């Protein structure tokens, strides 16, 4: 069975980490993910940019594009796509395309770090 681990964190706190604190967290995690990768038990991993870089597309009727992250609690995170676009506009259009005729909400988040095999290098 494949499992997705979704990392949830208090963003105000992460924003307050010093570079050293941030590096320390990554280094600590790296020890575990390296072990997993060696056993062939790790898929892609990625780190998202802060929610200040997020745009939300609310489908259903006329699509609505909003600045900021998706903040409702009624809807749950049920899946995600990783798409390669030249611009935010293209990403928004792609989201509209995928969610056509649905009542779905897409939060578009630029990816800060993408590790296809889960670990650096």
């Amino acid at each position, binding site marked *: 069975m494949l499992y997705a681990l979704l990392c949830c964190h208090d963003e105000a706190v992460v924003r307050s980490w010093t570079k050293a604190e941030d590096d320390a967290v990554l280094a600590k995690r790296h020890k575990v993910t390296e072990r997993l990768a060696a056993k062939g038990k790790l898929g892609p991993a990625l780190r998202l940019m802060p*929610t200040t*870089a997020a745009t939300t597309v609310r489908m259903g009727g006329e699509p609505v594009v909003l600045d900021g992250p998706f903040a409702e609690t009624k809807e749950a995170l049920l899946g995600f796509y990783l798409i390669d676009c030249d611009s935010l506009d293209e990403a928004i259009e792609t989201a509209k395309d995928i969610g056509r005729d649905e009542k779905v909400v897409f939060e578009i988040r630029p990816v800060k770090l993408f590790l296809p095999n889960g670990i650096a290098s």
Partner: protein
Amino acid sequence: MTTLGWMDPVLRSARPQTIGALLRYFRDLDQAEEAFQEACLRALKIWPVNGPPRDPVAWLILVGRNVALDDVRRRSKSAPLPADAAISDLDDAESDIAERLDSSHYRDDVLRLLFICCHPDLPAVQQIALALRIVSGMSVKEIARAFLVGESAMEQRITRAKSRVTRADVPFETPGAVERAERLGAVAAMIYLVFNEGYSASGGTVHVRTPLCEEAIRLARLLLTLFPGEPEILGLTALLLLQHARAPARIDGDGAIVLLDDQDRRLWDRDLIAEGLALIDKAVRHRRPGPYQLQAAIAGVHAHAASSKDTDWSEIDQLYATLERLHPSPVVTLNRAVAVNKVHGPAAALAMIEPLAEPLAGYFHFFGVKGGLLMRLGRAEEARVAFDQAIALAHTPAEAAHIRLHLDRLIKENQPA
């Protein structure tokens, strides 16, 4: 991180919202700060035992408020102090206050707190120091170090600034749309000042004072979280990220300034650039351009280019022209002249800056740019005079050293073979 290391960033990040809310409650800055301090002390005692509360900000606000109320009671010698255990049992009260303190409340609280630091009577340095002390929670010692002054001198400055803003009477009612926009503009300018202070340093030997730049970025991000759809706040944050991305390449091993043209762009921080560009993308969609967005767009053009030669200078010229229209200033024209020099040559650029001689008579960069243009036109003697004037106006040894480098080159090139 140590066992308790997780608490430090939590308390640090809770500070602006907590003090903002306590200020609304007490309407007194000192009292709000003291209550926050006291709440933090309790948190350090209670959280390691009971675990972190679900909403640390709500917890701190509630405890800070109760502690201050207890203080009043104690002074009136009535009810005894409650035990710490009683204070820690806040689960219901905490979720209650968390509901009432929704994000829109936090938003105006934090904005008010930042706005108080922007009092127009306060000189820039005091505004910055006050924001760093009150909002960011930097110690007086840290701030003094950043400004290269003694601790007691900085303490005095902050105390004076505080008493000035305390008398200012900033209204505590929820602001209307126009008032909110005005506050946002003043706060954005103050955050930009904090960044500039770190970026250009108005004295001393350390040219890039990184902590101030990082703090400014933290404040800009905080503001953007609260106002996610404001294009100028998107622009401001993008601008700071893109400029800060160049920091590792701006100073060489000897502490000398490296100009944009000569920087090793492999040293630029790609993460910060990517985030800055993503924010510009968002801002542009609003089609409401402003000075911060335009300056960010200019920084974005530089960030896209692999070298100075590959830079789209005519795009930069265009962006500066728009900025000049929107926000006329001799400094903007001076910056535009640098792009004009690349597109149309030094003679056109020199003609453009000649009318600026009077308004920029005390401006280091004016004489630096003028000297550079004259040098390129082969007018060595006039260039030397301009460079001498620049050195006389330099704020840091690194600035002076950079101009001396030009002077040396000038002298060398003009020596008879």
